[in-house]
């Protein structure tokens, strides 16, 4: 691969590129699903290719190919140069990148048990057994399970001399019980909705989840929801479970801090951000107990946003986003850092595959744990709704106004978890919501959740992001408005 990388960079330089970086990737993926005690999807994909990004006449061009021959990569590099020259037709100012050192390195993410080495029959047996356990519960009308594994090798080389190889193994797994009764569909998922939990790691994730143990309770809750009262419509206190809070962080902190959005580069599709440059170090984003970091380093944990170098060859970093409630930082790239006068990129550029351009993506954007035990938090709460496991999510294109609903809710009365409620939802304005946070549970309850399906860019790229969170309490929140018209 290094030869192809060097070859393409040489061609780009000879054709006039003043900067170039190239990323060859080999991606292997396995998908397994079951539905109603039968295998659903069973497949593997393998994709190998190379993408080269160049600056010519102060403008960007990118081309990619799966024709990994000397001629194939040379043609790809020439096409990238031609495209960059075309970009210069509508150029306002030349691209400037903040400096970065060169690195020659090889890194491998954590993976105790290679999922591609685990017998397929064992993987299917586990899913089918969990599926059967769900299906056995009376009232369940649809049982589903899934596992996904990816092994990603990438070779990054730049015209400034960096050569970085990285290997990342990603594993994901989950189950869902659905119950249709009396004109309503209720659903419960474990350990999270929309595919379960996902980490940078191997089959050890699947073993740690103990699907069989949780299948029955998950299924029973999906049926019980039909008999539960509707979540009330009111303004009050909510406690969010960790996975739901992870998505809340993703949507109302992670996206608005992307500097490409802030600078208008995503205005046509993903949108812009309320966090305009004048807000940095001035905005009280949240209450003083709230601390959020964007941390791609291994020491943060095996998240979907963990790596050694981003796809511009910048080392993984930990950046303060919200410190004691104050807005402190953006997610940046070498180009956007230069545009706002930062001296270094935050190292957040990532691409979905070899045929996609790297762009600013969340790394692990996580809420630092607080000091409460979950039991003490409940005991301290007189009247609230505990909401767990995301069911729907939506936020405006500047990331102010949001609405989430969850699969299940529980009334908290007099410090105790009492009855189940169905169709819980809450909504609000981002900064008002985060400023209403008055309790965050401790590190004992903190989980680094994986969001595997973050969409951004044109053409659309799907990326995995990490969000560490523990349950937290929010006051004066609008509850139940999603269903207030029903």
């Amino acid at each position, binding site marked *: 691969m290094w030869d192809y990388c060097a070859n393409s960079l040489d061609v780009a330089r000879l054709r006039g590129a003043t900067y170039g970086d190239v990323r060859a990737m080999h991606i292997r993926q396995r998908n397994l*699903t079951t*539905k*109603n005690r*039968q*295998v*659903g*999807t*069973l*497949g*593997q*994909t*393998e*994709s*190998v290719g190379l993408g080269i990004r160049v600056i010519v006449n102060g*403008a*960007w*061009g*990118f081309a990619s190919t*799966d024709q990994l021959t000397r001629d194939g990569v040379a043609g790809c590099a*020439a*096409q*990238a140069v*031609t*495209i960059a020259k*075309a*970009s210069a*037709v*509508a150029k*306002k100012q030349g691209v400037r990148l903040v400096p970065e050192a060169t690195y020659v390195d090889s890194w491998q993410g954590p993976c105790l048990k290679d999922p591609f080495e685990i017998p*397929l*029959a064992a993987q*299917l047996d586990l899913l*089918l057994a969990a599926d059967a356990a769900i299906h056995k519960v009376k009232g369940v009308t*649809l049982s589903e399970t899934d596992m996904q594994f990816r092994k990603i090798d990438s070779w990054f080389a730049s015209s400034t001399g960096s050569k970085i190889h990285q290997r990342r193994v990603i594993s994901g797994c989950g189950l869902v019980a*659905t119950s249709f009764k009396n*004109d309503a*569909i209720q659903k419960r998922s474990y350990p999270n909705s929309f595919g379960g939990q996902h980490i940078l790691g191997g089959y050890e994730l699947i073993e740690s989840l103990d699907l069989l143990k949780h299948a029955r309770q998950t299924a029973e809750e999906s049926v019980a929801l039909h008999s539960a009262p509707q979540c009330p419509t009111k303004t009050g206190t909510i406690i969010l479970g960790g996975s739901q809070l992870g998505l809340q962080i993703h949507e109302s902190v992670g996206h608005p801090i992307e500097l490409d959005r802030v*600078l*208008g580069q995503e*205005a*046509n*599709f993903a949108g812009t951000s*309320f966090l305009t440059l004048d807000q940095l170090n001035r905005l009280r984003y949240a209450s003083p107990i709230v601390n959020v970091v964007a941390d791609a380093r291994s020491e943060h944990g095996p998240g979907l946003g963990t790596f050694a170098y981003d796809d511009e060859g910048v080392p993984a970093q930990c950046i303060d986003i919200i410190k004691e409630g104050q807005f402190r930082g953006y997610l940046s790239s070498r180009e956007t850092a230069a545009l706002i006068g930062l001296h270094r990129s935050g190292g957040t550029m990532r691409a979905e595959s070899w*045929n*996609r351009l790297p762009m600013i993506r969340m790394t692990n954007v996580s809420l630092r744990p607080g000091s409460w035990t979950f039991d003490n938090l409940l005991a301290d709460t007189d009247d609230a709704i505990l909401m767990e496991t995301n069911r*729907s*999510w939506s936020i*405006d*294109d*500047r990331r102010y*106004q949001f*609405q989430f609903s969850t699969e299940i809710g529980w009334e908290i009365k007099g410090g105790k978890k009492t009855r189940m409620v169905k*169709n819980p*939802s809450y909504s609000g304005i981002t900064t008002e919501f985060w400023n209403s946070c008055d309790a965050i549970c401790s590190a004992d309850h903190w989980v680094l959740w994986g969001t595997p399906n973050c969409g951004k860019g*044109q*053409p659309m790229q799907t990326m995995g992001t990490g969000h560490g969170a523990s349950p937290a309490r929010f006051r004066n929140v609008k509850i139940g408005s*999603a*269903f207030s*018209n*029903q």
Partner: protein
Amino acid sequence: MRLPAKNRTARARGDHAQTPELRGEKVLYGIIDRVLRLAKSRRIPETEVEVDEVVDTLTRFANNTIHQNVAEHSLTVSIRAVVDGRTARVSTNRLDEDSLAAALEDAAFLAASQPRDPHLLPMLGKHRYHRVRRFVPATAKLSADERARAVKQACDLAERKGQVAAGIFSSGQNQIILGNSRGLLASYRQTHSAFSVTMHHGAAASWAKANVADIRRLHPVDLAKTASEKAARAQNPVELVPGKFTVILEPAAVLDLVGFLFYDFAATAVHDKRSCLSGRVGKRLFGKNIGITDDAYHPEQLGAPFDGEGLPRKKVALVHQGVVEQLVYSRRSAKRGRTRPTGHGFALPNEYGEAPMNLVVAGGTTSLERMIACTDHGLLVTRLWYIREVDPYEKLMTGMTRDGLFLVEKGKITGAARNFRFNQSILEMLRNVECLGPARRSSGEEMFEMVVPPMKVRNFNFSEVTKF
């Protein structure tokens, strides 16, 4: 697309780099032959091979300048093996003999590793297909330089108006060839191009988009003008109290909302009781003015005339005069339902079955202008954003208005309104449609392209307002 004169000169000079071309069909047939021969030599009972080739390019602009400009060329070989009533699929983009053989063997191994599937059907034999012509050489040849010049025109327009433009200009071509060991052979190729533009005028914004097979029918500057004029009108929005409003939904808003119904028409979804149509087929669910068809042969549609197994697609009347009349079926769901398949199955194996991918919502004769003129108090909605399902059986959806929400009073647009969040059942909405405009191929940002009309809808539920 109307090319500027300067562009024609550049083309004459021949200083455009060649946009990569699709390989000839014979090359792809050759790959299928190679895999089927390998399968025969390994005595794999049934084998299906799908070859997909993609050449895509996209120029992206923001802040009145091009900031991303990309191209990709890829070819994927996807192999499905059937071994003793079991099936699995393996895909690769490595075309050498060893890699294809390894992919084939992996598919057979994966297939053999699972329990037998008693409902698995034998692969299809030969079929004849309706010919559709959706490959336009002019689109395939569009160069980066031509895209850049059109983008520059949009950016120049924005600058003249004191506005800021952002968007994309994409073009591409793709082909698919599907063959199997029972002699089926199906092929399809198409071109496509899209122009999407957002114009910011101070804090206000508006948007326009189109997606076509034939570049000669795409007019980027006209789209930029539309977005520009609407952005200028979207300034100084008033904050309205949330509640139920009469809304005039432009086609993109209709598409992105009504499009969320598409999988509900799958027989498998109804069987699995996760469709909002479970227990409702044959009933009048919508207003009498609502008709929905799936029609892969509609002149404004794109897409292959066969499904994931190679079965020819049929035109299916899903909703007629508000009554849910038919669903779409794969071969498997059709056998279970004791009916005939409609040619809407996904590639096997999968757990979702099938879906209509070429929806056509029947239009009416009321123009958008007439809808505005006959509205005493309402809102004109340009586009919707971040739409998600809140309740799957009532098809209750939430989302935001975006890029141009206009107040209509006494038959005229009188100003702009701050964006609203909606929580609205699609089923209820389609019972409240007062009038429809002409249906046309429409593009949104949340759902794939469909043919839909603008609609005037009463009692549309807005639950909250945002800050802009």
